[in-house]
């Protein structure tokens, strides 16, 4: 019985809400409330991985669309409904805050070289001797980069890139079966690591550390 009454109440409420939205310009407050609700979500989502921010951005995109759709009617009917206008005018600053999470999302997957190094040291997917061997190869590659940045013509960028890709392939082939998470993290940061190595300034900064 309780369920039936709940279902009836829900249907009545939902039909009532549907009726209210069509004639009146309720979308602005509706658009405003999700944004306020989303703002803390994105703030919480920043420490997490990139999966959450895109969701917030996908949610954030419809919000401006609804406000953009509702803005012209509110502009036409706006004169009598001043409080709604205030809500609508309050929305644009929130729209300014809404694009902020994508910036955070862009900075969130920053390259954590120390973290990757620690994880490579700790992983059980690679044996001790293999790790030592890989470390030798990384040292060799870094020496080649040092030569290149010192102005020597011999290791060209193309050669360095080939060596870098080969080394990455070796690391990934060792990791992919037993530590897929680390392998995928390395794949995702592969180009950024290359960027650090290829840029003389960032490479010098890396060497200084």
């Amino acid at each position, binding site marked *: 019985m309780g369920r039936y009454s709940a279902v009836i109440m829900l249907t009545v409420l939902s039909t009532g809400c549907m009726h209210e939205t069509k004639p009146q310009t309720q979308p602005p407050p509706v658009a405003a409330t999700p944004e306020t609700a989303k703002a803390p979500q994105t703030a919480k989502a920043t420490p997490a991985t990139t999966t959450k921010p895109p969701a917030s951005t996908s949610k954030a995109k419809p919000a401006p669309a609804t406000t953009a759709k509702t803005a012209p009617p509110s502009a036409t009917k706006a004169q009598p409904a001043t409080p709604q206008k205030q809500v609508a005018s309050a929305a644009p600053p929130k729209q300014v805050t809404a694009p902020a999470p994508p910036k955070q999302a862009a900075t969130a997957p920053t390259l954590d070289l120390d973290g990757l190094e620690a994880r490579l040291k700790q992983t059980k997917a690679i044996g001790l001797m*293999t790790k030592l061997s890989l470390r030798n190869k990384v040292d060799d590659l870094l020496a080649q980069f040092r030569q290149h940045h010192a102005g020597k013509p011999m290791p060209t960028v193309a050669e360095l890139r080939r060596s870098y890709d080969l080394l990455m392939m070796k690391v990934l082939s060792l990791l992919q079966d037993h530590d897929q998470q680390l392998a995928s993290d390395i794949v995702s940061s592969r180009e950024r690591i290359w960027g650090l190595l290829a840029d003389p300034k960032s490479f010098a900064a890396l060497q200084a550390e």
Partner: protein
Amino acid sequence: MRKRLIARAPALLVLAYLATPAAAQQDNEALKKDLTAVIALQGQPCGEVVSATVLKQNDYAATCKDGNKYHVYENDKGRVVVDKQK
């Protein structure tokens, strides 16, 4: 309770006896895989290491499936060396 423990004691002893070689075997398998990867990283032909012997710390003798034998060790400069044995 005590009778149960006494009754299970032989089984526990057998399990303990069997567990130690199994762990050693796992270690040996891991070592073989490790050496296989090292030899492959050095670009030497091997296929798969079928037997490995610990000579010293970070110093191994490996026999490959294709019959090749290698001395794999870390030299005093910290570099991993793979020497082909005849």
